[in-house]
């Protein structure tokens, strides 16, 4: 079970968190022309890499903050964690 450092609460066990998907995906701005391809890429396409991956986790049974976790999907090594609004 992973040990995830929540930037707000410190090291907490994985079972307090919910996985939230790829954190490198940016939602297109509101009220902007978006091509079909661009929109489909945003809604559906995810890379799911083997290796280092920046991902969202939601501290759902804790402080309820969404955080970014820089994690290796193969070894589960966590390199760093960030607040949701921190640029990585």
């Amino acid at each position, binding site marked *: *079970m992973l040990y995830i450092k929540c930037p707000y609460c410190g090291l907490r066990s994985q079972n307090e968190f919910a996985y939230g998907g790829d954190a490198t995906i940016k939602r297109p701005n509101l009220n902007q022309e*978006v091509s079909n391809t661009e929109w489909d890429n945003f809604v559906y396409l995810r890379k799911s890499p083997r290796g280092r991956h920046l991902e969202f986790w*939601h501290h759902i049974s804790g402080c309820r903050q969404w955080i970014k976790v820089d994690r290796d999907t193969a070894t589960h090594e966590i390199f760093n964690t960030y607040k949701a609004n921190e640029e990585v």
Partner: protein
Amino acid sequence: MSQNYRLENVGLINREKKISFKFNKKKYYGYEGDTLASALIANGVHLVGRSFKYHRPRGFFGAGVDEPYAIVQLYRNNETDPNVRATEQELFEGLEAESVNCWPNVNFDIGAINNFLRMFFPAGFYYKTFMWPRSFWYKIYEPIIRKAAGFGKASIKHDKERYEHKYEYCDILVTGSGPSGLASAYAAAKNGAKVIIAEEKSRYGGSLLTSDVNIGNQSGLQWAEKIITELKTMPNVIVKNRSQVFGYYDHNMLVMSERVSDHLPNTEKYTPKQRLWYIRAKEVVISSGSIERPLVFGNNDTPGVMLSSAAKDYIKLYGVLPGKKPIIFTNNDSGYETAIAFEKNGIDPIVLDTRRNPKSAIITEAQNLNINIKFSYVVVAAKGYKKVRSADIAEISDDKKTLGKIENITCDCICVSGFWTPTIHLASQSGNKTVFKKEIDAFIPSKPKQNETTVGSAKGIFTLKETLNDAFENGFNLSNKITNKNIRQSAPSVVEKITSSHDKFWCVPLPKGKNYKRFLDFQNDVAVSDIELALREGFRSIEHVKRYTTLGMATDQGKTSNLNGLQLVSEVEKKVVPQVGHTTFRPPYTPVTIGAIVGREIGKHSKPTRKSPMHSWHEKNNAVFVDAGVWLRPRYYKQGNESLFQASKREAKNVRQNVGLCDVTTLGKIDVKGPDSAEFLNRVYTNAWLKLPIGKARYGVMLREDGIVMDDGTTTRISENHYHMTTTTAQAANVLSHLEYYLQIVWPELNVNVVSSTEQWAGAAIAGPKSRKLLEKLFPDKDVSNEGLPFMGYTEGNFFGCNARIFRISFSGELAYEVNVESNNGYFMWEKIMEVGKEFNIQPYGTEALSTLRIEMGHVAGSELDGRTIPFDNSLEGLVSKKKDFIGKRSLEKTAYTAPDRQKLVGVVPLDKKTSIPEGSYLVKDANAKLPNPKLGHVSASCWSVEYDNPFSLAILKDGKNMIGKKLFALSPLKNKKIPVKIVSSHYVDPEGKRVRS
């Protein structure tokens, strides 16, 4: 029967306390401190089971965790446990056990015919034989094979025993209390670290319990006792016996299974039978020791053939003789310790040493005791069926290929020692890439992946002096990284015998013309010939060979068989062992009971049960409950002998005619606060929110980014920057996460806060034509007229001294209100409304009537918002703003979503106005068309319309808007029904919505 094999004055058992137990219904006696295995051997019982495939007789092979044979069905406290290792089960008064995998009994087992047919049961037999005809597999082959195979029987009763989970954190976890574990735990604890030391057996000390050594002028046993006693007194140390650390998971999380009560006749009240520990350790010291390897020879599975170390344990720990005419068959010095133990207890062993001329102190000691030692000798085959009666032995050439003249000697046990295999399971599980160490012919851990350090014989150190020095050093260094206290203990002096090196020989060649089975895996009956066959058939990867032959796949996970299997593959393949590699070690190291894994999360504890503040009122009034997510909601209130159908019809009718009361506490409620709340809601919902005035509610629909409807509900503007959002019961948690996602990640610039307030409010829906009259009585000083509190209006009031929120919203389609009070006042509110409402013939109604009311009104709910529909499908397109952007809007432009014949919500009535249409039915044009009959839509919800007194359903139908008036068929293959139906508007009752506005 008396204990004929029990020695006097030897062992660590308590002879003061005699214990009676039963094996295969026969009564025996043992002593406190015995295992079931040692007590049975003391009574001369050597046949305990039958093997998996050939049903060959099985005795005892080990004395502990590695035991492949002695697996029993245990009865205790009116419960039964399958596949308990007799070598680990401690004896208690009244213990009962039975043999497994034999019928009618262990002495006469019909399945043993397999043994004589074994030429027909080679590796992969099942794969090869039961291929044809295909249909036979499920019906005939598999059931018969299942019946014949398998060991113990799992109980099908509810397990009354209690199991617990515990979470623990420590600086250093030490897995094993042998010399290396004790030393590192002691060094770390003395240096101020928080230490957990776990011992899988009941006694601490590991090899020190039986080895003939001196540490710091005391015996090894005394030293171990001294250290463990001191550790127990230290506040920073947790000492646990009967506790197996069986799994090493990510981020230094280890799981340990503690057998709290398995050694007692009963589990005390509030004490668990077993406890699972989840331990997060900063550093892990793996001191799991090593397991002796068997030597492989003909019929080496005969009862009476056992590991030499096990024989030593039986003598020295339990004072039990495994035999009175033993042969010790060894390729290293360890066998001599067993030989000396026999000799010192008055039994003359014969030692067969595969080596030509080894020299060491212990061999000299054995020679001085006049033990009969034959060098360059091997056991060719064991003789005897249910017990070893003699052994064929022979001299072996230096190249180990040629056997000399075969002699037969009488014996009643053969103790084998093929050197030691480090227990690397935990290190390997943690991700450590193990390496093969040639000098010991085994794998040892190399570079750790996590914070893990292996010490002692688990990393291939087999001298005590080196073990203690290394363990003290590691214990200090690891703890000092954490505590920085620099308190160092020096390793004590050691007196031990220096051993000579082992012989790399491990498998005796077959004599000419003999076809003995030479077993590698004793539990799964995998012999040398099976592996050779698999290799001949082209299996190369050790992982494939393992699966094809089932080598190492039994409940013992190949603890004694893996390395010999690897050696064989490497020999046949002419590769070195490291090239062959070992199979993956996976947790658990030893079997863990399902009970321990589940812990307290059983029955009602498996998920929380949430009840509204009015729950006890519902109970008192004969409510029949239904699970709604984690909530319990009244489905209907039973009067007399009413059925669900009758009760829900009565309740729904009363809402249409008088007034009804429904508990709506379970609806999700979210407080939305902050200056940008309106803008946020405008982005979250499909309709416009910027102009909602204070004191007004609005119905809203929210989408996912892919355009699918996520949830619906009303949101009310309580004050300038404060909104009260409601969600469906089921989606409440998801909606909150969804809102948080957008506020924290996508639009952090919005100044809005959201928090769940579901549990803060108790909610009661008052619905029906007489609801306003009732409300007037409930809030006498409020203007609740159609002008004072119009449809979708909101006001606050005083409910008999309680703060109340009053919403004029309706799910039933009737004139209706929802009153919320603080949860603590919920019961009071409910009772008061029922009391005041008596004169208006108020009745409570449950979810069944609620469904009826909303279905015939054409209001959508979870069965339509099923994660597959867009607003148009639910006839909610009127709520989709064209002027503003919102979550999921761009997806609604998709071709499929804008198709002219897009599916749409419709009403469905059976032509006969009598037959109810099962939910989930398909709508088709032709009831008898050839399959697959083209599906036009499906029935999402059905009810008995109380307005028209006939069945009515909602459906999502292709090109629904042009289908009104058409005749179709509703097919339910599940219920075997074909119902002719007519498509009508989804607004079956009050299509203009007059009532809610009246």
